């Protein structure tokens, strides 16, 4: 049985600058989202109980083969990539279709892991959509995974409670960041990772080359207004004065 980890290539958000209220994405390095890296680390931690492979699944543009190296270095055995420049701005519905088709082709998948939300879009839709397409049981916001025979026992972290649920494999789950600390591989590990097996599909290999209706239209994207004073204080006394001035009498 294999574990598939869906990871999304995203711009390094710490390096995104705003100019005229619009994000500047040119030149910003691409990487896999942090929560997706936690999902991978969780899959790696199941190494002793799951004999099969850990396969990173990602859909994105031409940079993906390069971006995925880090995931391969961080413990994934193989990568399954769907590459097409139209996937750059694709909406959740289309991405879900693409990922579900890819999972069908990977075969023998027991556990299909997602991040709770992607770093750039944070919508939390893709996992549920893929589960619906495949007709597999789903559990969101998982912070602990145990495998017992043909079953997964998952601890879900909700706002007000934790739920322990079980389901027969194959199971689709999304994880929260606290499930596992992402692995940061060394540079030599990243170089070596280039040799791990990769399967690359185009949209036509998945039977999805036709035009895809968009289900969500982006009307505008703007950074909110908001200027701060940016005053550098010299001492604790200065800070106290600021706090005192705001204190209600």
């Amino acid at each position: 049985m294999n574990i598939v980890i869906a990871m999304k290539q995203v711009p390094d958000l710490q390096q995104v600058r705003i100019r005229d209220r619009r994000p500047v994405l040119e030149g910003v390095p691409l990487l896999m989202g942090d929560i997706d890296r936690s999902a991978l680390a969780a899959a790696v931690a199941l190494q002793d109980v799951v004999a099969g492979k850990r396969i990173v699944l990602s859909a994105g543009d031409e940079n993906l083969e390069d971006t995925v190296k880090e995931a391969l270095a961080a413990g994934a055995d193989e990568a399954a990539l769907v590459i097409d420049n139209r996937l750059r701005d694709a909406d959740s519905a289309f991405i879900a279709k693409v990922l579900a088709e890819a999972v069908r082709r990977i075969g023998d998948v027991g556990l299909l892991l997602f991040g709770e939300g992607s770093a750039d879009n944070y919508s939390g839709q893709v996992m549920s959509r893929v589960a619906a397409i495949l007709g597999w049981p789903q559990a969101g916001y998982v912070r602990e995974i145990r495998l017992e025979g043909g079953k997964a026992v998952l601890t879900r972290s909700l706002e007000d409670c934790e739920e322990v649920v079980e389901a027969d494999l194959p199971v689709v789950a999304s994880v929260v960041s606290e499930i596992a600390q992402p692995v940061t591989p060394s540079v030599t590990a990243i170089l070596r990772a280039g040799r791990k097996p990769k399967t690359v599909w185009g949209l036509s290999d998945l039977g999805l080359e036709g035009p895809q209706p968009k289900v969500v239209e982006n009307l505008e994207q703007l950074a909110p207004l908001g200027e701060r004073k940016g005053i550098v204080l010299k001492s604790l006394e200065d800070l106290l004065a600021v706090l005192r001035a705001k204190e209600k009498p």
Partner: protein
Amino acid sequence: MKNVLIYSERLELAAELVSAGRFVASAAGGSLRALSVGDADLAGFLASRGADVLEIRSAEQPPADPAQIAQALRVAAESAGAGVILLASNRRGKEIAGRLAQELGAGCLTDVGRLEAAEGRITGVRNALGGATEVFQAVTTERQVLALRPGVFAAAPEAAPGAVQFLDVPLPEPKIRLRETRAKAGDAVDIGRAEVLVVVGQGLADREDLALAERIARALGGEVACTKPVATDRRWLAEDRIVGLSGKTCRPALALLLGVSGQVQFSVGIRDAGTIAAINRDDQAPVASLSDYFLQADLKAVLPDLAGRFPDT
């Protein structure tokens, strides 16, 4: 399909959705229905807020398998002639949203922080790029699924009671079985409403120092809040004290940030604050440009001193 269907398993969120649903329904010239799945209390509550309720029976409430709720919503939407299905963007709500949207062939927006209706089109405003920007999005399919962040609409007050109608819908066999529910340590405080917030980040080295932050917060008439890793990794504070993209959006008159780096996913939750003051030992940390007043200092050295200036009440 001008009508609107709302669902949340949580009373307080469902009450907000009644208001949101009325807003959307009146813009579209349709009517509002609310769904309850196996929860007579919820059905009664929704009716007391003036909503007409569709109730679907189920063994569990709420069912642990989101596929069951999605099925109930599909049937209810059909029966109500609802083109817009409004859910709460809590974790359960978001999980259902994607499933339902997929099954309806619909577009979906989650984590919607603002809803605008003009010329028959509904626009949802949500955070993108971790909160660095806001995107204005519209669903283009015939049916649309929208999940609203808590607090976007005020809870609907009591009103002339609506009717409760039972729908006989066999739900599919659950594929997810609930073994156990454990309550989470939470607080009664709502940091989203606090006037003053003292926010601690990972720059606070020792757990004992939390008491110092609490002392300052108390003296200023405020609450302690935190960054995500302080709650989820260190588990020093309850998760409902997290400020940011996956936590709460806060609007205090004054926020004091202690050892917070100020990355986008955090900043989005505090940018509506009146005044922001910060202490960080790194003057290159993003928090420096995010604040009105910035003090470069080591908390180890200055926090005891700062706290000592406030009475220990």
